[in-house]
């Protein structure tokens, strides 16, 4: 019971996974696989940031792509216009995060006062507007055609970039884990469970919801920056609904409100996308693989609302409870007999 938390069973398990991921590119000498895993990790960051909104605060945003897109465009434009060095890259991440933070603050302040369906709808509308602006503002974004740019010299080696992304996802995971377990994070969970009640306990829920949406926006912008560098190309696709849907699917299928769940979801969705679109050459129906995802997603919402990790967790706790009860039963019997 009094084991140090750092050495809890799940943390050791995560630690082993991280070690395996560090070793992975050196063991498996495959460029495509390294790129795929990098992609999975980047979307993992995005999905985790979405989980802060959907899983922990219980608000549905359909405009998450706008923050992702802001990060991607900031990095792409700055690397293209200035020198393509690692410092500009770091600077562009910071700029993207600040812009995303400011935007999510304004949007949040304006819309989070409303009920959840308004928020979902408005975020969708605002991000739709941003997409149209990006398409029309060709002098900066080059519209739908997009533009390529040079990644910093260091990232020429895919493995270096992979390791950077891996380091960042670990940092983001630890930060978010600390965040959701902090008193502030607990208030967010309370908002999810019962907003009225949290309000009557004296918490300004709007304030907490805005904090959650700013944090989620900032992290999403980071994911966007990394995504742009991993492709060395950016176009308006980074602002489309598809990105939001990806994050949504990963979070739902992996398990809402678990942080690990979205990562599992990212692995499932990204690898399925990769292999299913590979199958499309032989079976044309797989070109529309999104239908399968849509159907799986609908079924998941109805029958499997906790997702993969959530369901496993629930089963595990059930099993633990049962075990605990078995241990308790003889004790209470003793008590009764002593009476």
């Amino acid at each position, binding site marked *: 019971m009094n084991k140090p938390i750092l050495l809890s069973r799940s943390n050791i398990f995560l630690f082993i996974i991280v070690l395996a991921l560090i070793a992975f590119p050196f063991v498996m000498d495959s460029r495509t696989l390294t790129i795929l895993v990098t992609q999975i990790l980047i979307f993992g960051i995005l999905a985790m940031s979405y989980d802060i909104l959907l899983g922990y605060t219980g608000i549905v945003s359909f405009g998450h792509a706008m923050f992702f897109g802001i990060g991607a465009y900031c990095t792409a434009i700055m690397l293209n216009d200035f020198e393509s060095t690692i410092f500009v890259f770091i600077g562009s991440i910071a700029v993207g995060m600040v812009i995303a933070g400011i935007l999510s603050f304004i949007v949040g302040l304006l819309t989070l006062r*409303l009920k959840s369906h308004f928020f979902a709808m408005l975020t*969708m509308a605002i991000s739709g507007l941003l997409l149209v602006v990006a398409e029309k503002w060709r002098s900066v974004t080059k519209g739908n055609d997009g533009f390529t740019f040079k990644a910093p010299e260091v990232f020429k080696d895919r493995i270096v970039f992979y390791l950077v992304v891996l380091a960042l996802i670990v940092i983001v995971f630890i930060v978010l884990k600390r965040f959701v377990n902090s008193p502030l994070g607990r208030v967010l969970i309370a908002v999810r469970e019962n907003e009225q009640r949290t309000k009557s306990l004296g918490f300004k829920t709007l304030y907490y919801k805005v904090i959650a949406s700013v944090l989620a926006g900032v992290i999403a912008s980071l994911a966007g920056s990394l995504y742009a560098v991993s492709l060395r190309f950016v176009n308006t696709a980074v602002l489309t609904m598809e990105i939001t849907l990806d994050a949504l699917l990963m979070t739902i299928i992996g398990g809402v409100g678990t942080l690990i769940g979205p990562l599992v979801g990212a692995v499932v969705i990204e690898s399925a996308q990769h292999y299913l679109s590979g199958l499309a050459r032989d079976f044309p129906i797989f070109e*529309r693989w999104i239908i399968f995802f*849509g159907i799986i997603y609908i079924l998941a919402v109805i029958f499997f609302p906790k997702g993969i990790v959530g369901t496993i967790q629930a089963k595990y706790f059930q099993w633990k409870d049962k075990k605990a009860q078995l241990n308790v039963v003889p004790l209470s019997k003793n008590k009764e007999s002593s009476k």
Partner: protein
Amino acid sequence: MDLIFSLIINGLATGMLIFLLASGLTLIFGLMHVLNFAHGGLFVWGAYAGVFSYAYSGSFIVGIIVAILTGLVFGFITEKLIITPVYGNLVQQILITLGFMLVLQEMIKVVFGPNVVAVKVPELLAGSWQLGDIIIIKYRIFIIFFGFIIFGLFHYMLTRTKIGLVVRAGVMNSEMVQALGINIKRIFLVVFMTGSALAALAGVLFAPYSGAIYAELGMEFAIMAFIVVVIGGMGSFQGSLFAAILVGLAGSFMAYYVPYLSLAVNMIIMVVVLIFRPQGLFTTAKG
């Protein structure tokens, strides 16, 4: 003068199409507290089903009828399969209807092919009238009349018939209606199917208006309809007409005078409404 006149006609026609889409959305929301993100999907299905049957039969009326039937059938399926299982759970409703929207949109590409489909205006409604300097495109007038007829019809049904009475009562307090022994579930289904049919009708009317349809159209129009519903007030039928015309006119005037603002103008109206009257301009629904 002639310019302003044609801008007004343009704006009214666009507004009417958005109204057809938004009125279904607003009634469904008012009665069931379900925000149907799949509504845009029904719009595109209506457009495609209508256009293909119009091309096949050569009669636009057949196209309209097929679109309405498609809307009814899809509305029935959506209500039974998608809405009922998650009834009462807000977050799940939002998530699931969006997922269904995705499936509907991709199904379009499977059934009708992924390419943009060109649509011609039916012969009877093609061309334009000339009154002095003013050129009036016939099809736009047709849409405006059609929209007003639909509005009148539904306004009559809502205010003068028994089912309209029940629907309006349901918007105010659905538990009370149920307590008085009316099967509110059946009313839900009817309203949902009607709303879907209106969306499909908007789709088929839109097709010759724009001249081309594609699968992503649903999402674009759904966003417009959402904006209109927010401005007009959730659950208000008259509000959605007023807001749709407002959005249509603002869009057409801005597109001419300040083109770069034309995209933002709807958002600006919505933001202003949200700041000063978050419940919308007209409201009958609670919450």
